[in-house]
């Protein structure tokens, strides 16, 4: 149990896929314009990550080493297809907004990277914990970026067509935050702030 918690926490913080390993950036930058999208994207990626980690970890002894990458990709692609069809059937407006990013979960480096680096070498429970930690870490960073960009860039947060938070009509939103360059700026400064805090706390 202790080991599982360690795996989970290390995946969530120390090896945070976006901030520390710097993988899976594309989707994070592109869809973090709205909190709602980040929530669904985070759930979709976590689902695929946990499921593919489980299957790959279970079958790690029967997969021949030479063809492991194609096998991993087919496993991942199957789960992404499930997400693709479910999202299209039950959440058409969100599917339309996420667009090409749902099929692109297949080529999200986080998922193949964890299959190769973790699930193919560890037992099932640890792989599930790693999947949850990685997915959670990805979702948290997405939520932070999404909240900041939607709140500052548009002046309010809208979820399921209801306004949750509003900064009032006197606030004039700097639209640049929610446009394309804003994604790069937000991510760069988020990373810099994290570096700063790390330096202060651990004095590295």
């Amino acid at each position, binding site marked *: 149990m202790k080991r599982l918690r360690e795996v989970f926490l290390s995946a969530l913080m120390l090896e945070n896929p976006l901030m520390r390993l*710097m*993988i899976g*950036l*594309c*989707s994070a*930058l*592109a869809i973090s314009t709205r909190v709602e999208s980040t929530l669904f994207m985070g759930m979709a990626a976590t689902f695929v990550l946990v499921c593919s980690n489980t299957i790959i970890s279970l079958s790690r002894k029967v997969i021949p080493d030479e063809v492991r*990458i*194609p096998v991993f*990709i*087919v496993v991942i*692609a*199957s789960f*992404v*297809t499930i997400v*693709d*069809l479910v999202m299209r059937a039950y959440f058409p407006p969100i599917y*339309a907004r996420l*667009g*090409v990013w749902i*099929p*692109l979960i*297949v*080529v*999200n*480096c986080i998922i*193949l990277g964890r299959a190769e680096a973790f699930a193919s070498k560890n037992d099932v429970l640890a792989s599930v914990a790693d999947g949850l930690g990685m997915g959670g870490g990805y979702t948290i960073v997405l939520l932070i970026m999404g909240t900041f960009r939607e709140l500052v860039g548009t002046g309010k947060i809208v979820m399921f067509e209801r306004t949750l938070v509003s900064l009032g009509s006197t606030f004039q939103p700097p639209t*640049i935050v929610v*446009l*394309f*360059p*804003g*994604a*790069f*700026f937000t*991510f*760069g*400064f988020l*990373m*810099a*702030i994290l*570096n*700063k805090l790390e*330096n202060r706390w651990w004095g590295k």
Partner: protein
Amino acid sequence: MMEAARTYLLLFFGAAIVYNILLIRFIGLCPFFGVSKSIETSIGMSVAVLFVMTVATSACWLLWGLVLQPLGVGEFLYIPSFILVIAALVQFEEMFIRKVSPPLYKAMGIYLPLITTNCAVLAVAVESVKPGFLKLNIPYHYSLPEAVVYAIGVACGFAVAIVMFAAIRERIELAPIAKSLRGAPIGFITAGLMSLAFMGFAGLFKL
């Protein structure tokens, strides 16, 4: 004739500059930050992407039009089948480059096999066949030559952005920068400024 030429030209420049795949659409950022340390490797990477993207898009278009669509299985088989086509092509290209130019092979290192998981290649292949996705903002079925021109345009846009970024980065290496901004964060901020510049092309023309 003139009309067709105009469409292709608009498609090419739209894909390369107005909807630049790296700076405006954020697709394929891993090599953008990974191999952009020197101009030379980024040129190598761009050539590899241009080749894989063009061939993969035509192969996937044919696969969709001749096999998946007539059999009615496209909706749920397109993701696995496209990714396998791309993986096979990358494998082929890797063998080819290793044979023809060992220095280039060495320079591209880990990023050559990673083109398989470069979202840009899959994205362009998917966009060239699936209706309803963002294709320069209009739902539209590409014909084969249009899909090829679109793929070449996207790859050229990729090359322009990554080579420019590599050139800027070579200079940043020498600049005095605050400690917590050093490395990746300043890279993102640079990319943001470039993206800001590319946004200026947005009103260039309407498709």
